[in-house]
């Protein structure tokens, strides 16, 4: 009994066919799972869009408020009579410098330099 004969016998003896209805089941199953995948993908896509939008809004708000703060500081710098205000607006200060600046302002307000002579500070 040579190899070819055994192969032929095997072919004739065993040739399983896919069960009836398997085509529909397999294709339906893969379509459903693919559909789930698509929906998941759409969901992710929607949320990703929303997050990007939210991020843009936050950046815009941050920039706007930053700009407003900056312009207020600039206004204060130009309107302020003292050089210490200009110093406050223009350069980043340490806590100690801030405190000295505030003390200086308080002492000036106390001495009536801002037209508040006689008004006691609490």
């Amino acid at each position: 009994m040579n190899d070819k004969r055994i192969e032929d016998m095997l072919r004739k003896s065993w040739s399983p066919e896919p069960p009836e209805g398997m085509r529909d089941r397999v294709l339906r199953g893969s379509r459903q799972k693919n559909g789930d995948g698509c929906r998941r993908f759409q969901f992710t896509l929607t949320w990703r869009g929303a997050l990007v939008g939210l991020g843009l809004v936050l950046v815009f708000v941050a920039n706007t408020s930053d700009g407003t703060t900056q312009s207020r500081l600039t206004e204060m710098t130009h309107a302020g009579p003292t050089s210490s205000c200009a110093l406050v607006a223009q350069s980043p200060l340490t806590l100690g410098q801030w405190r000295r600046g505030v003390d200086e302002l308080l002492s000036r307000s106390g001495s009536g330099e801002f037209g508040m002579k006689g008004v006691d500070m609490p």
Partner: protein
Amino acid sequence: MRDVQAAATIKSVCIVRDDERACEGFLEDLYDTYARSLFRYAYAITRSAEDAEDVLQEVFAKIARERRRLISPEAIKAYLFTAVRNSSYSILRTKHRRDRFTDEWANEAKWIDDDAADAVIQSHVMRSAFAGLPPEQREVLVLKVYEEMSFKEIAEAVGSSINTVASRYRYAIAKLREILQGDTHER
């Protein structure tokens, strides 16, 4: 020849693979071209029609999800056989069926021949002998006998060396011969 036509069809579908309807056609094409071979391959490894169907379900669902990765239609056949193999062995491992002999083939497999009682008996003996081989030998036999793959192609599909694959084939054939001749002598 059919593979070449199928590859051409699939290739044309692959180009428009973002089209949902084309993708359904793509899966149907794949199924119609390869399902019978893949089912037989999965069945040879798992020895269960139910498990073989589960394997195909899993593989086709995977293709539906990952079809955008299937760039080369020519490689689809190899991809499918490898996917079926992996999934089949995974089921075998899960169910611990590897060494358990079931007589399912004798009940489920279709009688192809024939009126003569001898041929029927021989066919039954052959199926039982085939079912009794280790899965590694069964899969090599199926790829060689039914898919007419070369040892080199089989080696690539199962991820072993050509020598290993060739010796699995030789052992399998020798075992079948021994059982069949033993049965003939007994009768």
